[in-house]
């Protein structure tokens, strides 16, 4: 019996339990004409009938589904154990490697995942596997059904007018709510744990100091067996990331984003704003792979031609400038909306005061609004930087792979995210320093973006409080 069928069956049982428990509760309830009558024979129900239904349904579904989940994890071990007791298994070789290879081959054929075995010795084990599988899956299904029926029967006997079904059901709902919100913590722990664990394995091969301060990045040479020394110096990557994400991109995003926000909040008529603001939001909604394609196909060749035109001849077709410019455009809406928020939260009285003194609108903006909104704007820019350095697809497609330490925007640089993608695609042996380096880079990226976010949010928060 396969998994879908048994789960459908149990869900069906749950529905039956819900209906019959509700019906039973309804029969227990006093008729509508009696409810106001003090001399009625039957007591009032504590809970509405549907809560009795839910109570029974939960008792049917809960234990059975939990049992099935556990069984699905335990069953493969039991099946293998039973197969090994089969006389055909006695012919298996003793060494663990080929033994488990044959076993998994036989298992795949028995489950229909593979057609034929490479190793003829696996053929003898297919039939034992099939029978063991049948035995345990049938057993599991029967046990789950028994549990469902037992749970239902237990719940059914407890239905009485004074039974507090609602309280019990609500307790279950409450724990579901709590569990759902704990998933966020589990995810955070998962991220930190997996990054730390793999990074520690990496740092057992490469010293953290070499990694953080080394100037030479060439994981290929390490993979080819030239040793891990001097191959994993990540400084060129950090520089490339900062150069593209925090310098070139911000040269585009800060002026354009800030001026857009000023124009939208201070000058634009409401009708114009109704069109221009969504347009900026569209810019934020374009997928990054589209920006990357655009940068690589349209902007980068133009940049190279431009460099040749102004007399730089060794310009790369994967220049930092192309990736940075496009990333800057991607960040514009982000900077603009943060600046919009902080300009809007400057008290109206400050602006009115300045205008009343005879200042023009632009003087008010430059000398009153911007200085007052500056902490908020700075916080927004920090958030934008953290967004830019974590951005992947634009740099993967438009920036190069050469780890250069250069100030020349027409040269090719590489970034942390590009290298993570580069290291983890293609053939993966999970214990090589080359693969694990990606996790160390990921850890650095995670920590840096986290710090930027914390600092930025603190700045913005303190600034908001100053005006409240």
């Amino acid at each position, binding site marked *: 019996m396969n998994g879908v069928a048994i789960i459908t069956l149990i869900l069906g049982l749950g529905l039956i339990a819900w209906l019959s428990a509700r019906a039973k509760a309804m029969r227990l309830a006093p008729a509508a004409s009696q409810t106001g009558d003090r001399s009625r024979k039957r007591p009032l129900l504590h809970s509405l009938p549907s809560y009795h239904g839910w109570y029974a349904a939960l008792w049917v579904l809960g234990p059975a589904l939990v049992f099935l989940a556990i069984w699905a994890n335990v069953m493969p071990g039991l099946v293998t154990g039973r197969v090994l007791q089969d006389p055909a298994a006695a012919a298996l070789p003793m060494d663990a490697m080929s033994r488990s290879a044959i076993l998994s081959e036989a298992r795949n054929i028995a489950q229909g995942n593979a057609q034929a075995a490479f190793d003829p010795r696996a053929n003898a084990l297919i039939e034992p596997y099939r029978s063991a599988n049948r035995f345990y899956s049938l057993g599991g299904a029967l046990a789950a059904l028994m549990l469902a029926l037992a749970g239902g029967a237990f719940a059914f006997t407890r239905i009485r007018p004074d039974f507090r079904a609602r309280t019990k059901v609500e307790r279950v709902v409450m724990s579901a709510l709590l569990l759902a919100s704990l998933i*966020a913590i589990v995810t955070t722990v998962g991220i930190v744990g997996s990054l730390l664990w793999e990074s520690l394995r990496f740092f057992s091969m490469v010293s953290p100091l070499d990694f953080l301060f080394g100037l030479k990045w060439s994981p290929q040479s390490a993979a080819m067996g030239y040793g891990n020394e001097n191959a994993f110096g990540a400084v060129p990557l950090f520089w490339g990331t900062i150069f593209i994400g925090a310098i070139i991109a911000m040269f585009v995003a800060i002026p354009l984003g800030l001026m857009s926000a000023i124009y939208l909040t201070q000058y634009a008529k409401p009708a114009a704003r109704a069109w221009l603001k969504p347009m*900026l939001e569209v810019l934020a909604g374009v*997928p990054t792979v589209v920006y990357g394609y*655009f940068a690589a196909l349209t902007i980068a060749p133009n940049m190279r031609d431009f460099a040749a035109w102004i007399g730089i001849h060794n310009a790369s077709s994967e220049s930092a400038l192309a990736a940075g410019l496009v990333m800057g*455009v991607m960040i514009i809406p982000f900077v603009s909306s943060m600046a919009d928020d902080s300009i809007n939260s400057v008290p109206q009285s400050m602006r009115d005061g300045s205008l009343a003194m005879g200042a023009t609108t632009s003087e008010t903006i430059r000398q009153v609004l911007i200085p007052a909104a500056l902490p908020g704007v700075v916080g927004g820019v920090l958030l934008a930087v953290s967004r830019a350095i974590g951005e992947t697809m634009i740099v993967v497609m438009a920036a190069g792979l050469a780890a250069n330490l250069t100030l020349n925007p027409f040269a090719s640089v590489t970034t942390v995210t590009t290298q993570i993608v580069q290291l*983890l695609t293609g053939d993966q042996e999970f214990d090589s320093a080359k693969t694990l380096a990606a996790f160390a880079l990921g850890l650095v990226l995670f920590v840096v973006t986290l710090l930027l976010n914390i600092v930025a949010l603190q700045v913005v928060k303190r600034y908001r409080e100053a005006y409240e």
Partner: protein
Amino acid sequence: MNAPVSPDALRRQPTDWKGDAMRKRIASRYASERRFRRIGLAAILMSAGFLAYLMISMLSGGLGGFTRTEIAVRVDFPKAPIVIDPASLRGEGAEAVLSSVNWQALTDQAATSALGKDGAWIAPGAWLVVRDAVKADPAILQKSVTLHLPASAELDVAAKSEGQPAAEAAYARLEKAGLTSRAINWDFLTSSDGTDPTQVGIWGAFKGSLLTMAVTLLLSFPVGVLAALYLEEYAPRNRWTDMIEVSINNLAAVPSIIFGLLGLAVFLNVLHLPRSAALVGGLTLALMTMPVIVIAGRNAIKAVPPSIRDAALGIGASPIQVVFHHVLPLALPGIMTGTIIGMARALGETAPLLMIGMRAFIASPPGGITDPATVLPVQIFLWSDEVSKGFVEKTSAAIIVLLLFLLSMNSIAIYLRNKFERRW
């Protein structure tokens, strides 16, 4: 230390607004005001211009990807080296009869006899058109018919833009003979990835995207809504709640590639879920989307006025009933808007899916969530890496499809917001 000030200077004069110096000063202040305003307008127009440039370059490059160049070829079935009884194609077993024929040879021969050496410019997959024509109407087997066969990638590029010299020359000859035409390439919408740009399509990637999104939605929406309800309505103010809030806010700002690393380390290497599958992609994106839904959901729940809760509590509803019968239905439009926006972001996401191996070459649409699959943005990334020039317009065409899809999702979100938003 101050210089002695003459008493004249200390006597205050009223400002002479009509004087030359003052007029000039005011004029320059107004000029700078106008300048500043123009700079602001220029900034926003530059952003708009960039958006327009991007859209126009995608449209101009990509619309050609939805069409293909076809060459009219006269196929003389009675003389062709195949023997099929048309009657055998009408009943049972037609598929077996069709698959027993060497259509490739038939097509090549027909093309060579009709076009001479230009017959080589027929696409490698052109025989599919011949087979489908016979399948649709077996009667043509006794006739000589003109079929419009797709041209090869090189000729297609030559027809639409600059191609190789040989292909350009061939196209000029064929065009002069009046044999070429342009038709909508339905295969682009119905087939999957391939090696020949004339045969590739986006259906496989599109289906992969749909499956991945389904997994993401099924996981992140219930969890996100429940978490938002808990945090907004029930959570006690203590250290645990603070930790949950901090981690949700941080998760919303973590770079997407980090989620890819998590998926690789946990879902693939620890839990041994199938590589490249929509299931793992959906799980990874669900972790990424969940914080977005929680944050949007909390804002929507916060916007429901307390009087609703008080009234419900006042007539004897339990706290759970208050929330599930009254607060949640009122907050749902806001939650849906946030969810659609989060899903749109997840749909355009590429980097985390590269990490979990969804960049494999998948030539057939996935049948379920555990089959190897790829998604639209990753397909775009893969095609953008192809050397063949025919893939350029296919990439742009796929981008157009992706953008249209995102646009419609966002329009639905805006529509929902406008229709159901209530100000209390």
